[in-house]
C-alpha cells in the first residue's frame, strides 16, 4: 500500500514513504519534499518501506537535494531499502546523496548531524 507520512521533531522533518513510488504519485512526493524544505532546516526522506522507486521518484529526491543545497538546508535519505539502493546505484547516485541510518543523523547544510552522541 502506498503511503506518505510526515513528522517534525527537534528541527528535522522526516517524510516517510511506503510502497511503490512511481509516476502515479511521485509528483505529490516532489511537492511534499519541496514544501518541507521551505519550512524546516533539515529534511530527511525515510525509504525503508519502499519496495520500488522509478525514475520520477528519484527525480523528486534529486530536485529536493539540489533545492536544499541552494537554500542552505540539510537533506538526507534515511534508512534506504535495498530496492531503492539498487536504483540509486544504477545512476551512481548512492555516491551523491547523503544517506544516513536514522533520522537523528540527518546533517545540516554543513554536514553536521542534528544529534551527536
Amino acid at each position: 500500500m502506498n503511503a506518505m507520512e510526515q513528522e517534525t521533531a527537534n528541527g528535522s522533518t522526516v517524510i516517510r514513504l511506503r510502497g511503490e513510488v512511481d509516476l502515479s504519485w511521485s509528483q505529490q512526493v516532489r511537492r511534499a519534499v519541496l514544501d518541507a524544505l521551505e519550512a524546516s532546516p533539515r529534511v530527511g526522506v525515510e525509504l525503508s518501506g519502499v519496495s520500488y522507486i522509478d525514475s520520477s521518484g528519484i527525480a523528486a529526491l534529486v530536485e529536493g537535494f539540489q533545492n536544499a543545497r541552494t537554500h542552505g538546508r540539510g537533506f538526507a535519505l534515511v534508512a534506504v531499502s535495498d530496492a531503492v539502493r539498487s536504483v540509486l546505484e544504477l545512476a551512481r547516485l548512492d555516491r551523491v546523496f547523503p544517506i544516513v541510518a536514522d533520522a537523528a543523523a540527518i546533517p545540516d547544510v554543513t554536514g553536521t548531524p542534528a544529534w551527536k552522541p
Partner: protein
Amino acid sequence: MNAAVPLIEVEKLEAWYGKRRILNGVDFRVDAGEIRVIMGGSGSGKSTLLRHMLGLNRPVSGTVRLFGKDIARASERDKLEVRKRIGVSFQGGALLTSLTVGENVALPLREHTALDESTIRIMSRLKLEVVNLGGFQDLMPAQLSGGMVKRAALARAIVMDPRLLFFDEPSAGLDPVVSAELDELILRLRDALRMTIVVVTHELESAFKIADTITVLDQGDVLMTGTVAEVRAAANERIQDLLNRRPREVQVDADEYLRRLTREDG
C-alpha cells in the same frame, strides 16, 4: 493485471514477404522479469518476429499479445497504453537528427506524461548518466560515435521505466568493452528497475552472458527455447552449427532452383 498473464504471447504467427514465408507459425512467450534472447542467423526471422511484437507488421495469421492485449485488434486507446509500457532500442538508434541528445531522450516523457519540466530534465539526464553519457545532452546525434548513438537510444528507450524493453542487436558494431558494459547494464536494468527484457542478437557471447532463456530461430521456425545450459547442450544439428559458427549446408532442389531463375511472373 493478473500476474499469471505473460507479458508477451505470440501464437502461430505466420509472416510473408511477397512469396517468401518468413515465420512458419511461431509460438513465443515471455513472462515478467525474464531476460529472453532471440538468437538466430541472418534470415532466421528474428527481426520479423520483433517487428510483429512491436506492432510494426500486422500478422497474416496468428496473434501477438502484449500485456494480454492483441495488438493487431486492440483499440487505439489500449494500443497507446501498451506503447507507454514498452521501450525499444533500435539497432541503428533511430534518434531524431534535428533534436539534441537530451531532447531525444526526453521525447517520450513530453509525449506521454504531464510531468513538470524540471522532473523531465532530471529524469532524462539521469538516464544519460545510467548509459554513461552524463553531460552529453546538448550534443546533436551527428556528433556522436556509433557506440554513443546506441547508448543514447537505450537512454531514450528506458526513460519511461518501461515494464518491457526490446533491444535489437545491442552489440552490433561496438567495441568489446562498450559491448560488455551494455551487457552488464541490461542485467542491472532488470534487477533494479524490474524490467522484462527481450534482446535480439546474433552475438553468442553476449547472449550467453545476459540470457535467462534463449529462443533459437532458424528459417522461420523456433528450434528451441531453453536456458543457456539447455541450448549449449542441445542435440539439434542447426543449433550446434550456430554455436560453432559452422556454415549451413544449403539444400538444392533443382526444379525449384530453375523455377526461381526462369519464372516470369516475378
